[in-house]
């Protein structure tokens, strides 16, 4: 009987699948061109340190980024010592995840005198992974606080899986993923919230040569197979640069949450809503400013804040200044009827709301309201 491999080969010929398959190049052994700046730290594992001169504070405000569970464990979240932060980012062999996708490059940035020092671990081939994971775990020591961009959804679940598969324990640490806070500030005003987009729009920095994220996996696959691929320099630079930008972006985002008027490109409604539960006075001034500039969403958030603060008169004024929608009209009708004792005004408002309301159930409720108000006007209690 033909061997399994021969039979499979024959099938491949029939399918013609081989035509566009890349021919593996012979692997460069000892003459490998080490990617720029790297040195061998262990068999199969490369390391480099890159320093980025940045102006950074000693204490960081992480409150806008941390989930409630982590807030408690971290001490004073508004003043975390810079030395504890670990800005981190992984590059992986695939973008869709799953047990066969591994991290081949890890970057961990620390705050040091005068800037951020980024340490990168790069494996030469698949067997280097356990060494990379062990080094990564060492970098994420007990006091560490992770800072990432989308790490909660991507990097950490992937890393956790890799640690499991290598029978290691992923060091669970408090984790400040700044993606959601950045979306809160800039999604409505800037659109794309990728790290690169914000780097350019918020930090005003441009990258000279870069590599699109989607091309990164194939670079590593070629690099491992052939022992050299000049694009790996670009990948490593991209990864280190991401981490440095992450530090600056975390700083800026935290500052905007504390001093909302530092920038004009933030969304006042989302920021004001977030501040409402933490600093109502500041929230009110953010929302009033936004509403003053004609931002309807800020007005709605402001109305909600006024009610929570018990300032109904201010709320009435805000609602009156908003575009008439079924919501604002009905809210005003309720106030007119119950608080101000003016059923005729309430009826007028409710009648104005009816043609705008499309939802069946809400229309029915509105019709009942109108009927009741009419009865009330005809026969005052």
């Amino acid at each position, binding site marked *: *009987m*033909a*061997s*399994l*491999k021969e*039979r*499979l*080969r*024959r*099938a*491949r010929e*029939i399918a013609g*699948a*081989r035509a566009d*398959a*890349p021919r*593996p190049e012979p692997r460069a052994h000892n003459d490998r061109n080490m990617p720029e700046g790297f040195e061998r730290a262990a068999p*199969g594992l490369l390391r480099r340190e890159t320093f980025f001169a940045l102006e950074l504070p000693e204490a960081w405000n992480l409150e806008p980024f941390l989930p409630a569970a982590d807030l408690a464990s971290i001490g004073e979240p508004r003043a975390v010592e810079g030395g504890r932060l670990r800005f981190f980012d992984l590059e992986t*062999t*695939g*973008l*869709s*995840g*799953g*047990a*066969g996708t591994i991290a081949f490059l890890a970057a961990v940035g620390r705050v040091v005198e005068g800037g951020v020092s980024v340490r990168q671990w790069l494996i030469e*081939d*698949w*067997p280097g992974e356990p060494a990379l994971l062990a080094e990564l775990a060492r970098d994420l020591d007990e006091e560490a606080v992770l800072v990432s961009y989308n790490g909660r959804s991507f990097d950490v*679940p992937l890393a*956790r*899986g*890799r640690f*499991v*598969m290598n029978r290691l324990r992923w060091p669970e640490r408090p984790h400040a993923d700044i993606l959601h806070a950045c979306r809160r500030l800039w999604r409505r005003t800037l659109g794309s919230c990728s790290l690169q987009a914000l780097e350019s729009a918020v930090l005003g920095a441009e990258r000279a040569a870069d590599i699109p994220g989607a091309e990164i*996996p*194939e670079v590593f*696959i070629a690099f*491992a*197979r052939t022992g050299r691929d000049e694009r790996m320099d670009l990948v490593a630079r991209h990864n280190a640069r991401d981490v440095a930008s992450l530090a600056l972006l975390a700083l800026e985002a935290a500052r905007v949450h504390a001093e909302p008027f530092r920038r004009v490109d933030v969304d006042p409604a989302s920021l004001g809503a977030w501040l409402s539960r933490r600093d109502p006075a500041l929230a009110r001034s953010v929302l009033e400013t936004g509403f003053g500039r004609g931002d309807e969403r800020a007005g709605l958030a402001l109305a909600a804040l006024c009610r929570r603060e018990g300032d109904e008169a201010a709320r009435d004024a805000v609602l009156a200044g908003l575009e008439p929608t079924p919501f604002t009209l009905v809210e005003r009708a309720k106030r007119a009827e119950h608080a101000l004792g003016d059923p005729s005004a309430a009826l007028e408002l409710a009648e104005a709301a009816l043609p705008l309301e499309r939802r069946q159930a809400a229309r029915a409720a509105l019709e009942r309201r109108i009927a009741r108000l009419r009865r009330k006007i005809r026969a005052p209690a």
Partner: protein
Amino acid sequence: MDTDSATGFFAKTFGPPGSDPRFVHVESIPPREGVHADFPRDLDPRLARALRGRGIERLYVHQARSYDAARSGRNVCVVTPTASGKTLCYNLPVAQALLESPSARALYLFPTKALSQDQQAELNELALGGELPIRVATYDGDTPSSLRAAARDTGRIVITNPDMLHSGVLPNHPKWIKFFSDLRYVVIDEMHGYRGVFGSHVANVVRRLKRVAAFYGARPSFILCSATIGNPEELAKRLIGEDVELVDVNGAPSAPKLVAFCNPPLVDPVQGIRKSTATESVELALRLLRSGVKTILFARSRVRVELIASYLNDALANVWTENERIRVEPYRSGLLPNERRAIEKGLRNGEIQGVVSTNALELGIDIGGLDAAVIAGFPGSFASFWQQAGRAGRRSGASLAVFVASSNPLDQYIVAHPDYFFGRDPESARLDPDNPYVYADHVKCAAFELPFAEGEGFGPDVEGALSFLEEDGHVRKTGGRWFWSSQGYPSEGISLRSAMADNVVIVDATEGRDAVIGEMDRPSAKELIFDDAVYIHRGRQFVVLKLDIENRLCKVEEREVNYYTDAVVKTDLKVLSVDAEGSSPGYAWSLGDVLVRSQAEKFKKIRFHTHENVGYGEVHQSPEETQTRAASLLFPPGSAGGAVLAKLSEAERAAAVSSAANLVRQIAPVFLMCDPRDLGVSERSRDPHFEAPCIHLYDRYPGGTGLAEALVERLPEIFAAALERGGGCACESGCPSCIGVDWQVPFAQVPGRAVKASTRAFLAACAGAGDRAGS
């Protein structure tokens, strides 16, 4: 059904047995009393209470035996007919283990999502009643992502299907660490469904499951349930790669049942032409439906299902009586899932009285009890026949199954031999976990899941498969291990349901509608929905505007026509390897790889109802090429069969080989438990490779599913049965029920009487002596 006895039921619709000559045989299957056993002594009191709450005071004997075997840690395979309380065979030992050990988990595999849903409802409502602290979670393509994490982390019993296990669970196993670490039981229900190419895939998914579980230190026991088949123990072993304990006693009671054979009357006795199966089945089904009998009609193909359903609905059509208040629906693959669910529901709640189905409804999908089954044409296997017949019948009250024979040789063989039919054992189900394509695909997936270490065991030749995958860059060997070294997510591109994943989407383009109405696998599409073909979807007729294979798109337009279409497919075959050979005095055989090239060249237009040929059209589709396994039957001059052929003229020889090939192909499926469409045939009066007359019988699935290997073992029986049918037919000069009529097209100059005689002589020579062992 208010008639208690099966005979009474039959007589009510068709008159007393014997009064209608079409019913050539009526077999009465007597009711059976239940055989019971007490609750196991160690049964958790909460479980016993839950059972009593459902009115169960004792177990059936097969439930008790399964419990004992599973509790002892052995793998168990339980064989039970429908409606015999099968689910308790696994629910009891699993629930007991889960109650004893609060961290233990179990995985339930059902072949379809619909069955998973039924099972979750059953587990929640009946077996566990909500009182037992066992969380049951369904995890399939329909599970919202918000519920998935909870299912993984807290589901004690996770219900899924092989496809989801393959593409969703195993590739993400690090998220399932708790589940796999404590995996105690794996339940595989409807095991008989895992045969052929699907079974071959699932056996490899089980290999992967065991490998991942072992990584987390778990070694689960398996509980498998099957309908009646010839080789449950063997199938279970091949599926899970381990020994099993067989439980094949059945303690469940059953109601009386009648199985009737209907042979449609001869329209032309000389030419052997009978009234069509479709027409006859429609007539019987109408009689049943009109007497208020809920009826399921099984037909052999998607096209026939649509045809018969529309014949039925045409006959019932009446605006004044809302079609006599009888609703009949077609049910087949290619309908959209929500259409299928609606039909299943309609059958359960009584809104639908009749359904016409392909074997899609053979599986345990819950459609409630029906009273009668009409089986239009033999479904290809005895196991399948009994599954279909079993669709009629409830726990109490008589039921009826009517088999309507077609004129093909196999059906005629069966109606002529009821004793053989009712006396024989069911066929064996086969799968080939070592099919090279299927296996290589799963080695790929397994490498993605965990790197392979040198010397690690996994199937027949893991190093061979890995070094093949290395050539394409999918894996990379380094440091003594093979690592997945490709970007993709391999299981995404591998479908368990066929050897080839790509489906053609059928789009209704009538007046710019642009709505997807179904899909079809690519090779079938080339033979069924070519340009100008008629496609019938739930009784509506469509004509294919354009089949765009490249973009996997078929545009159709709704149009009223009075015919359907049938492609004429030409097949060419090349021998690639000879892996085993053998001979007997009558013939020789060879087993090996072949390359089959098939192409639809033209199509026939066949008028509805009369089934007469009303025209031809051209098909312009590229050929399909597949590498597969074939059993080649050879008739060199030295063999008795070859000696008969050598005496014939060239045209006579060709006609005899062709008609014998037709007969053998039609008869063989019954010995192989396969669908007749799983087996292809290509015959030559002189084969260029073997330089002798030859009949190649090949597996239609790429790489083969074990059919060719099984076939060479059954050759003596197959030749004997072919001889009996071909030689014993009462027709004058050959008919569709014996040597067929297809040979007439190329060999019209040979008189039928001569062909019939020479075919008989040829088959007699072949069947003359037993097989000498081959090598």
